[in-house]
Every structure is written in structure tokens, then in C-alpha cells.
């Protein structure tokens, strides 16, 4: 009897423990890493929605027939309009998470917009001395937390349910380096990966991984190679680089693809940084577990124009048995690489306005007849401008239409190179090595466009013209729709097959962030960040003076069917 009671007791304890464990697992699952693989069509669980970087929603309730009936479901205001709203929101299990300027983070009911919690980051005053502020491009989520890099060099994890700090890790000495985090991190397995700003600073930019569980640093990768052949003299000490936007991930190859920023100084007056300046303006394939470099491809060796590779868009694409990576460079050229080894498969231009090279060899990736601004004090006409053939906003690839919907800018500039001594005390100062002013292309007005193209060949199916070069990201959906917002504050839905405009709505401020789609309780929503702001926007009024007065803003507009 005594033995039987003891056995029952033991069995009961085992069952209780097992139940508790199961309950823990069940509780953890909704925000656990396994739910963040974009398998659930209702969610938008990471910056580009999926590891392949497509920014494509498989939802089709809103389609070409009924998109005309879209109406506002709710609007949320972040309350800080400085530099607008540059982020792409996340939605997981009906809750929207987004980050605004000054590192304000919100959790909202995805159906109503009602606030669940907010977290206003207490920032170090050093932030007010920085160039890269106060914007942020996005959050990451997983393991029960949302993660973001801060304007003062930290990574913060917030509990997804409560908004309370789970952990805070300082990675950068922002007071010294004037560098910080503005791009969305990427959660890969048990790690949170993010890169720092550095391209215009006399420092060495890095990419970091911290452990999602406690924020402890797992690895860091220095984007400035310690190699005197690649960096003559002491130039590597001030080489810039970094990886300020978000990468992509291929689970099958277990590789993270991360674009790096330009070298510093941006312009080389001749001898400023002898060598090819690895690993700046490159695509890196890193082992997410260790940070080990598996391969790299330098798109712009010895970058003379600030055409960095850090725009944050890498499409993981399989075609004809080939594992490809489609990567947008700021020069406007698209590099199609074999993502197993970094070999060039094709190179094609998104823009037709360029003179920084005659062309780029589509077979080898070689820059043919480089045209660098080198002569000190003498303005040189260069295309595209420093904002790029495209900025850091992303296009969207639809695996249904097999088209890549991507924006481009046909704008030139006049660059004047100027010798500059790097300033590192008391804090790193900007290190451009020259300045520039926007110019119209030869024989015409500057403009922008949204194209539907084959991502591998560049073949164009349709194009839409914009007076002001657009800087907002693109969304495509299984409803055969393409959403994109312009500089004047109008978001439009296009027919993904023809480019015909099917719907529009004026949000009142221009678009720099990323529209998304999600579903709650069987109802599909389109969420559009609206809020004009951006460093590159400062370049526009030289060509379009009226842009100086385009209103800033910072709001999420959410639309659904009537």
C-alpha cells in the first residue's frame, strides 16, 4: 500500500512536471523562433517578411477586383515626426509591432490599432550629436521578444507580451565612434544579427550577433579586412564600412547574406585608401552560428562614389537548378550571384542614367572604364547621385508572377572632392572627403520609376513614372497587387501584371517605410507607414525646391475591405 501510494505520487509528479513543460512549450510557441519562419500567411514576422527577402504576402483576400473598396480601418500616430517613419512594421498573431524615430516601440492590436504597450527608449544625449539619427528601419522578433538596435549603440530585447525589457546589451561606444544602429536586426536560430553604421565615419564598421536568450555577444565580424594590400598605409583604421541594413538567410545552406557599406572617406582624392578596400561595398556570406566568412563578393572594388552594398535587399532565389542571390547595389546595378560560392551569374542595371562606369561586365562583374571623381576642388558630373540608383528601400518579389517590383532613381550629381584629415577625437567626425549637389541627367529631367522586372535577367515588363524619385519600399501580394507609396504622400495599388493603377489614398505625408499585409480573424489588412523623412531627402530640394516644404509625419495607416 505504501509502495503503491508512492508510485501514484511519483506518477502524479511526473505528469504534473510534463504538463508544466508542455504548457511552457505551448506558451512559448506563439512567439518562439519556429513561428517566425513566415509559414503562417497571416503574419509578417520579420523585416522582409521571410528569410528569402521577398516582401511578398501570400494573402489574396484583397485582389485586383475588390482593391477599389479598400478603406481605412485605423491609424496610429507615433508622435515623433523628425525624419519621418522609415520602418517596416511586424505582425505576429494579430499584434503589430513597429518602431519610430527616437526608438519609440509600439505593440498594437492589429485589428483595431488599440495600443497594447509602448516603450520609449531612454537614449543617451550623445544621440543629438550624431549624423545617423533619430530614425530606425525596423524590429526583429523571436523567442518571446522583439529586438532593436538603438541610436546609442545598444541592442534591446523587449518581452513581446508586456513590452518590458528582457535584456539590454551595449555593443558600441557611440560617444567615441559616433556610430549606432538604425537597421532592423535578423533573428537566425538562437541569435540576433545586426550591423552598425560606419560608412561615413573614420572607424571600422562591424556586424554583430548576440544571443537571443540573454543578449551576450556571440560573434562580431569586422568589415574592414586586416590586410595592408587591401588598405594601404593606415587607411584601414579609418575605413568605415559596416552593415547598416538587414540581411537575408538561406536555411538550407545555413548562410546569412549581408551587404556592407562604403569605405571612408566616401571620395578618394587619390591615395586616401590605396587598395580594393575589402570588405566594403561587398556581399558577405556568413555562418550565422560563428560569424565565419564563407565567401564574399565585392561589387564595387575601391568604391569611389559611395555606391555601397548595404541596402539590405538580397533575394534568395532558385532558378533552373541554380541557387541564386539577387542583390541590389546602390549604383543601380543588380548583381546576381551563385549563393553557394559568390560567383557572378549576371549583372544588370535598374537605371539607364549612369556614367560612373561605361558598364559592368555581366559575366565577370568587372567595372569597365571607371570614372571616379578624383581631382580636388574641381566639380565632376557623376551619375547616379549619392542617394543611388536606388536607396535602401526595398523592392518586392512575387513568386507567383515571378516579377521583382523595384524602384529606381534617374538622378545625377556634381561631386567636388576635398582632402580631409580623419577626426577621431573627442569623437569620430564625418569623413566624406568631398561634397555633392544633385543635378538633372543630360538632356532631361531627373525622375524615378517603379518597374516590374525579371530579377535574374532584368527584363522589364512594365514601368510607372514618378516625378520625384521614390524612396518607399514595395509590397506585392498573392492578390496580384503591388503597393507603393510616393514622396507626396499617395499610396497606390497597382495591377501586378500590367502596372495599371487600381486604387490610391492620400496619407498626407510622403512614404519612406515598408508597407506590409497581414490577416487577423480571417480579415486581410494592408498597413502603410506614412511619414516623410530621410537623410537623402535633403538632396532633393536642389532640384525640386518645393520638397523642402513637403510635410513630415509619422503614422501607420491600415486599410481593409469595406
Amino acid at each position: 500500500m505504501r509502495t503503491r501510494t508512492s508510485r501514484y505520487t511519483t506518477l502524479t509528479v511526473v505528469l504534473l512536471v510534463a504538463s508544466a513543460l508542455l504548457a511552457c512549450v505551448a506558451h512559448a510557441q506563439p512567439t518562439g523562433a519556429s513561428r517566425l519562419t513566415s509559414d503562417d500567411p497571416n503574419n509578417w514576422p520579420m523585416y522582409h517578411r521571410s528569410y528569402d527577402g521577398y516582401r511578398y504576402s501570400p494573402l489574396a483576400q484583397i485582389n485586383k477586383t475588390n482593391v477599389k473598396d479598400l478603406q481605412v480601418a485605423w491609424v496610429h500616430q507615433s508622435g515623433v515626426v523628425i525624419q519621418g517613419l522609415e520602418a517596416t512594421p511586424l505582425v505576429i498573431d494579430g499584434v503589430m509591432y513597429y518602431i519610430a524615430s527616437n526608438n519609440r516601440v509600439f505593440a498594437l492590436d492589429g485589428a483595431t490599432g488599440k495600443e497594447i504597450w509602448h516603450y520609449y527608449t531612454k537614449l543617451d544625449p550623445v544621440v543629438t550629436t550624431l549624423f545617423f539619427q533619430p530614425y530606425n528601419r525596423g524590429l526583429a522578433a523571436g523567442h518571446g521578444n522583439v529586438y532593436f538596435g538603438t541610436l546609442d549603440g545598444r541592442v534591446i530585447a523587449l518581452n513581446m507580451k508586456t513590452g518590458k525589457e528582457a535584456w539590454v546589451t551595449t555593443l558600441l561606444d557611440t560617444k567615441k565612434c559616433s556610430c549606432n544602429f538604425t537597421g532592423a536586426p535578423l533573428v537566425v536560430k538562437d541569435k540576433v544579427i545586426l550591423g552598425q553604421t560606419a560608412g561615413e565615419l573614420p572607424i571600422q564598421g562591424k556586424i554583430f550577433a548576440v544571443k537571443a536568450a540573454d543578449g551576450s555577444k556571440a560573434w562580431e565580424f569586422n568589415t574592414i579586412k586586416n590586410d595592408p594590400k587591401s588598405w594601404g598605409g593606415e587607411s584601414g583604421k579609418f575605413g568605415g564600412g559596416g552593415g547598416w541594413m538587414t540581411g537575408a538567410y538561406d536555411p538550407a545552406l545555413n548562410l546569412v547574406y549581408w551587404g556592407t557599406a562604403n569605405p571612408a572617406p566616401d571620395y578618394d582624392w587619390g591615395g586616401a585608401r590605396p587598395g580594393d578596400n575589402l570588405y566594403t561595398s561587398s556581399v558577405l556570406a556568413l555562418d550565422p552560428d560563428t560569424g565565419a566568412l564563407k565567401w564574399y563578393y565585392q561589387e564595387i572594388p575601391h568604391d569611389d562614389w559611395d555606391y555601397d552594398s548595404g541596402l539590405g535587399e538580397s533575394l534568395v532565389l532558385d532558378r533552373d537548378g541554380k541557387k541564386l542571390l539577387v542583390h541590389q547595389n546602390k549604383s543601380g546595378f543588380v548583381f546576381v550571384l551563385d549563393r553557394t560560392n559568390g560567383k557572378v551569374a549576371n549583372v544588370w542595371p535598374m537605371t539607364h542614367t549612369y556614367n560612373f562606369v561605361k558598364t559592368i561586365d555581366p559575366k565577370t562583374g568587372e567595372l569597365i572604364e571607371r570614372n571616379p571623381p578624383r581631382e580636388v576642388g574641381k566639380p565632376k558630373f557623376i551619375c547616379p547621385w549619392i542617394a543611388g540608383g536606388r536607396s535602401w528601400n526595398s523592392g518586392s518579389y512575387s513568386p507567383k508572377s515571378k516579377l521583382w517590383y523595384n524602384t529606381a532613381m534617374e538622378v545625377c550629381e556634381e561631386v567636388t572632392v576635398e582632402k580631409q584629415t580623419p577626426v577621431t577625437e573627442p569623437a569620430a567626425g564625418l569623413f566624406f572627403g568631398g561634397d555633392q549637389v544633385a543635378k538633372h541627367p543630360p538632356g532631361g529631367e531627373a525622375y524615378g520609376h517603379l518597374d516590374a522586372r525579371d530579377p535574374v535577367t532584368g527584363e522589364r515588363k512594365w514601368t510607372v513614372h514618378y516625378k520625384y524619385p521614390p524612396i518607399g519600399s514595395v509590397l506585392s501580394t498573392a492578390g496580384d497587387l503591388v503597393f507603393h507609396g510616393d514622396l507626396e504622400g499617395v499610396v497606390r495599388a497597382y495591377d501586378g501584371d500590367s502596372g495599371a493603377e487600381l486604387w490610391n489614398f492620400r496619407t498626407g505625408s510622403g512614404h519612406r517605410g515598408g508597407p506590409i499585409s497581414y490577416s487577423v480573424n480571417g480579415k486581410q489588412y494592408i498597413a502603410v507607414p506614412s511619414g516623410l523623412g530621410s537623410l537623402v531627402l535633403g538632396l532633393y530640394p536642389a532640384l525640386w525646391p518645393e520638397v523642402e516644404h513637403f510635410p513630415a509625419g509619422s503614422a501607420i495607416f491600415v486599410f481593409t475591405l469595406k
Partner: protein
Amino acid sequence: MRSSKLIVGVTAAALLAAVAIGWLVDHSPGFAQGANAAGAPPFDLSDSKVIGEGAQLFRQTCTGYCHGKDGGPSRAPKLRGAKLERSYIYGRITKGSPNGMPGFETIMPRENIWKLVAYVLSLAKAEDP
């Protein structure tokens, strides 16, 4: 009872005064964050050499993206042709602005800030190209 009324009255008056002072500080054109700390410039602000050095510092400190090349049009206020007080310019450069302009007080020597002031003052007479 009387003493509690007195405390409430004094507290309310103090709060009102604080709010009023805060408002005045916030809205006074002379406040210009740091203007009082400017003191006298260490050199003649109309000296062309000083202005030239200020222009170089201006170019190296976010021209184009911020105030536009040579103080031309941008999203930040256009400086060409702008009639601004010396102390106001000094205050803005040292402390920045709530609209996003960085403050340079802790990262730039005072002498360089005055060179920038000299350059910005010189832009008052500049005409658009």
C-alpha cells in the same frame, strides 16, 4: 486647514511660475540654446580666411544632406540669404535643434564653431547661383 491652503497656494504659484519660466525659455528668441555661452569670438568673423576655413568645415560636416551645398536649398533651413543673429547661429551649432540638427558642442572645438558662424554669417549676402 489654513496652513494646508497656504501650502496648496504656494505650490500652485510655484508651478505656474515654473511653467511660465519654462514657456519663456522655450519661446524666447534670445534663448537659442547656448547663445549666452557664446561669449566673444576669438577672431574677426568677417575675415575672409576665417570664412574660408568655416566653409571647409561646413562642407565636411554634412553639406548636401543637411543644409544643402553652399547653404543652398535642402530639407534643413536654407542658409543662403538668411539674416540670422550671430548668437543664434552659435547656439544652434553648439546645441543643435529639436528638429533633428545635431549639436556640435561636445565634438567640435569652440574655435571651429566660431569659424562655422563666420561662414554662415557670410551666406547672408550670398545669392543663389
